[in-house]
């Protein structure tokens, strides 16, 4: 049986952790009432949704890395992992920022967890995307 790449599995597990983060450390649950009386979820709700999608993408790419054989193909996928890690970090900070109040649950739990996990994904992506080592010449 073909051996799976451990680093690919690690990336997939990190992606899984990103998916479950908003479940374990939930974002704010309250609804905001607009002037027209309509109730809408707070903006961190969309941050969590976006991060769950990125997590799912990281899992898929991680599994692809785990099953792929050729180092060159893996290297290309690691570039994508690094990019997804960066997006995971930037989403709660700038792209779809969490709520303004620093004491709200999205800011005290979900955001730091996602930033840390995104950082780990980024590091894994950068380490994996280094050029594969050429095997040393052996003297027969």
């Amino acid at each position, binding site marked *: 049986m073909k051996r799976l790449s451990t680093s690919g599995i690690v990336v997939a597990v990190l992606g899984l952790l990103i998916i479950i983060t908003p479940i374990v450390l939930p974002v704010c649950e309250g609804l905001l009432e607009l002037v027209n009386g309509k109730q809408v979820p707070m903006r961190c709700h969309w941050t969590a949704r976006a991060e769950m999608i990125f997590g799912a993408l990281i899992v898929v790419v991680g599994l692809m890395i785990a099953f792929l054989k050729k180092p060159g193909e893996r290297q290309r996928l690691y570039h994508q992992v690094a990019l997804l890690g960066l997006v995971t970090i930037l989403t709660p900070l700038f792209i779809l920022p969490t709520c303004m109040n620093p004491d709200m649950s999205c800011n005290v739990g979900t955001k730091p967890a996602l*930033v*840390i996990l995104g950082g780990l994904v980024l590091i894994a992506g950068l380490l994996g995307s280094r050029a594969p080592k050429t095997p040393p010449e052996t003297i027969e």
Partner: protein
Amino acid sequence: MKEITLYTLALQNLRRKPYRAVVIGLCVAVATGSLFAATIVLRGVQHSLTVGRARLGADLIVVPIGHEVPAQEAFITGQPSTFYMPDDIKEIITALPGVQQTSTQVFIETLSNASCCIGEFFLVGFEPETDFTISPWLATHLDGEALGPFDIIVGDRILLREDETVIFYGTAFNVVGVLEKTGMGIDRTIYVPMEGMRTMIADSSELAEKTLTVAPEEISSILVSVAPNADILDVAERIEANLDNAKVFTAAQLNQAVGNQLQGVLGVTFGVTIAMWLMSLLTIGLVFSLTVNERQRELGILRAMGAQRQAIFRLVMGEAGLFTGLGGLVGLASAAILLAGFSRLIQLRLHIPYLLPNWFEIVGISFLLLVLSLLTGALASLHPALSSSKMEPYAAIRQGE
């Protein structure tokens, strides 16, 4: 050709057996990281209490009987709590010997949909004429300018900044200052001059969704400053003896309340951490004993090539130092990242005040823990290092075959 040194040999061994290095490193990383996190949290709580008590300025706090715990909670974490007692108590307390100064406060909770912030916040009405909590801050930050009835001062964690206007219970207030961070309840408190507070209470029936039912002669707490030559506990007892419906707690009791909250959690954390250190010590010792047995031939050849006993001893100790040192660094870095990210969550879940200790202290604690992790490696590998250095080259090569 690359020179072979003890360092390069140790590094090669680390690369040759990465799994072993990772296991040893992880043992030390987890133990060092946990100890670092527990120590920083403990020091952070102490730092916050020191800063918070200095800001509070009062020696004694008088609250209605039966409300001591919510009052302490309000001062420590800023959790809003409302309770009232008649204001004639103030005259009785002021007249008692040993009492230098008194100031009354009124507590009100904001509505959950206040214009500034979602969630309930703590509104504290204070008397600018008699107050000694906010006034010293005012003197330095507002150039001694008098505070208007609708000028408010907010804690660091309230999402309001200077010159902003905010409406509470239908009354508009102007933010004139933001207090420095203390890590305590003060950070989540909004200080309103008593005149403005009373106006807001009176107007709430017409302007607000909810009417405030605090009578003009009702107050929530009295802050007491004790005369320099008087004993704080004696004055506290004297006040309690003269009042039937009030309870006194000292600023030191706030520390005690936090201590009680922390005792269980930190006790378990320190206990588990010490158990982890012992486990790490045993694991590293065992791994190095097995490694030395496995590498008898290699060490024997090194001895046959001219390596001194001391060099073999230093090689084994150096490897242990390298593994545990790197593990310690990884543990410290991980704990620092987790603590930076989740300190607020810890503070809210444990209901404790927390203010990051100063950087010199953090660097000092990190250095001590790094030395401790290196010592763990040295202690655990001492016996294997001694026994390997005593091996005779010929016997070692033969036994290792």
